[in-house]
């Protein structure tokens, strides 16, 4: 037998998981009984979703004016939150696809949750362009389809790029997610009975784990991962171009694409930490989510935070070095203008706080990581707020400078979007195996009858 994978397999043995079937036992029990904690979270989320949809309905009925937007600040909390969620969506596929390609051994236990997060985050993000347009009922004009007007969308517009990038990203990551889940749904099917069994039988597509299925499955999975990886990078580059393609001082920068991608991974990983820490507690997955995993994620956070910080600094430097008065004013205004507080929140949460991750003791303390990840999430939201709002409110024409104050409706929708996300994520944890069953077994030592056999193979 090939020993090539011996190292890989030994690498992340979960000490208190004796045999393969234990994995099914531990993971599938999550699906069986909804705990009290789950119910509380679910009720909160449902209420939030109510607020989310209510506020949106009110806005559509009354007009986009119920937001605090104005001239010159035509984009505000909505676009900020859009970019935030797209960013969150990233590390899901990153952890899943890129780490898969690089055979990172700590991937298996978290990638399912991460991918689910991706799917639901894109789902949430995708709503915001719709929320922020003035005439929702005409938003479908952005989609190219043969129509009686002989009109097509403007493919030169970054917004149309967005439409393509985000929908593609949603489709591909959804497919990737579903495909990876199929064998585990099958496991769930075999472990359940009654209605659930029927449901699982259908969505598991009758998976039986035969040799042929596994064979093609493995290949397809690799190719999907190979496609998803550049996609991840492209999507947030496109999102960053919504800004970089404009001439607005503070937006019009070549650094934006890598800067945004790094930021996205940064916030994404932070969100994965936040979510898995909760799952770990609520579903008792300590055996599968070990400090090793968190240590790895923390290191990823640290790296990306350094990249992001570097991007901040180089932006300020370039503004100064260009000598261009308008650019200089824009960034001076960022630090000390009307929205100085947002900028400093951003710098603190994304630049200073993560410095703590240099210390092993903190990387290995789950509570500490949890708190830090929350800080990072807040910081990254404000990063987008700073980019969108401070750039717009002080532009070329001093006469047209203005102040933007988010309205209640806006905040309602923004906060509601978190509930909306949570709502789906909670459902997911109850309906689909939130931890990859099959792939975990892949990294467990296989059961052997004759220990000796190992040697000569």
């Amino acid at each position, binding site marked *: 037998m090939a020993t090539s994978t011996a190292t890989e397999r030994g690498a992340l043995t979960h000490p208190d998981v004796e045999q393969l079937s234990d994995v099914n036992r531990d993971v599938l029990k999550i699906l069986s009984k909804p705990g009290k904690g789950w119910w509380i979270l679910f009720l909160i989320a449902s209420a939030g979703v109510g607020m989310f949809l209510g506020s949106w309905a009110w806005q559509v009925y009354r007009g986009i004016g119920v937001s605090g937007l104005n001239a010159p600040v035509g984009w505000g909390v909505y676009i900020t939150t859009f970019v935030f969620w797209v960013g969150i969506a990233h590390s899901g596929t990153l952890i899943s696809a890129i780490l898969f390609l690089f055979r990172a051994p700590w991937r298996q236990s978290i990638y399912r949750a991460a991918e689910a997060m991706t799917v639901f985050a894109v789902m949430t993000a995708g709503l915001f362009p719709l929320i922020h347009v003035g005439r929702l009922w005409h938003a*479908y004009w952005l*989609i190219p*389809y*043969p*129509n*009686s*007007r*002989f009109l097509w969308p403007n493919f030169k517009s970054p917004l149309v790029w967005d439409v393509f990038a985000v929908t593609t990203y949603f489709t591909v990551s959804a497919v990737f997610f579903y495909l990876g889940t199929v064998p585990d749904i099958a496991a769930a099917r075999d472990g359940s009975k009654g209605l659930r069994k029927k449901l699982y039988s259908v969505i598991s597509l009758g998976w039986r784990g035969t040799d042929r299925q596994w064979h093609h499955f493995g290949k397809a999975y690799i190719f999907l991962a190979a496609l998803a990886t550049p996609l991840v990078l492209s999507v947030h580059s496109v999102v960053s171009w919504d800004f970089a393609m404009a001439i607005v001082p503070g937006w019009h920068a070549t650094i934006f694409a890598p800067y945004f991608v790094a930021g996205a991974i940064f916030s994404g990983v932070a969100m994965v930490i936040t979510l898995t820490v909760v799952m770990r507690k609520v579903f008792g997955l300590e055996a599968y989510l070990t400090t090793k995993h968190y240590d790895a994620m923390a290191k990823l956070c640290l790296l990306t935070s350094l990249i992001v910080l570097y991007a901040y600094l180089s932006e300020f430097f370039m503004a100064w070095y260009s000598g261009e008065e308008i650019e200089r004013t824009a960034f001076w205004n960022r630090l000390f203008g009307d929205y100085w507080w947002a900028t400093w929140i951003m710098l603190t949460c994304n630049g200073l706080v993560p410095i703590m991750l240099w210390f092993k003791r903190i990387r290995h303390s789950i509570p500490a990581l949890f708190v830090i990840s929350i800080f990072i999430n807040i910081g990254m939201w404000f990063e987008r707020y700073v980019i969108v709002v401070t750039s717009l409110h002080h532009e070329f024409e001093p006469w047209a400078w203005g102040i933007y104050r988010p309205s209640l409706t806006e905040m309602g929708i923004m906060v509601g979007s978190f509930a909306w996300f949570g709502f789906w994520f909670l459902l997911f944890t109850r309906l689909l195996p939130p931890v990859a069953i099959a792939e975990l077994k892949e990294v467990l030592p296989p059961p052997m009858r004759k220990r000796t056999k190992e040697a000569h193979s």
Partner: protein
Amino acid sequence: MKKHWLIGGLAGALTLSGLAFVRAQDAQVAANADDPQAYPSGQPIAFPHNQHAGSEPGQNNMDCMFCHFSAERSVDAGIPSVSLCAGCHQVIPGRNNPEEVQKVMQYWNDREPIPWVRIYKISDHAHFPHMRHIAAGFECQECHGEVQTVEVINQRDPVWGGDNMGWCVDCHRREEASTDCSVCHY
């Protein structure tokens, strides 16, 4: 075996969603065309266009612009004033259904305008200068259909494209007229 219905299904789904979009997109047009509220047929007077403008024996073969007087010099074609109707009908009692003519004269005597129901209407955000099209040598019929042959006009009889922008664009392209948006939309 399976692969067939699978592929078939996928293809079907795609086409369906495509259709759905086009449908949704034309909904407005449909709304105007099908919704009886939008274009009720009940005119205050049963005015027979064929009787006036028709060229059949016994019909009067009048020029459209005798009544729709401003078509060649204005963006609006114009509705004949009651006095214009009365002008003729003072002496013409009406061959087929004089009671309708009575109504006209009634309006005239009461000095009341006739509340005609509008049949031909394009969206308010599109500008259609009648005179430019007349000057370009178009017949009224090319847009309004063979009005002189119908007794009761309603929206869907003639080849009228109504709110359908494609219908305008199609002609503009055919005739090599400008397709610059701001020619109609401003």
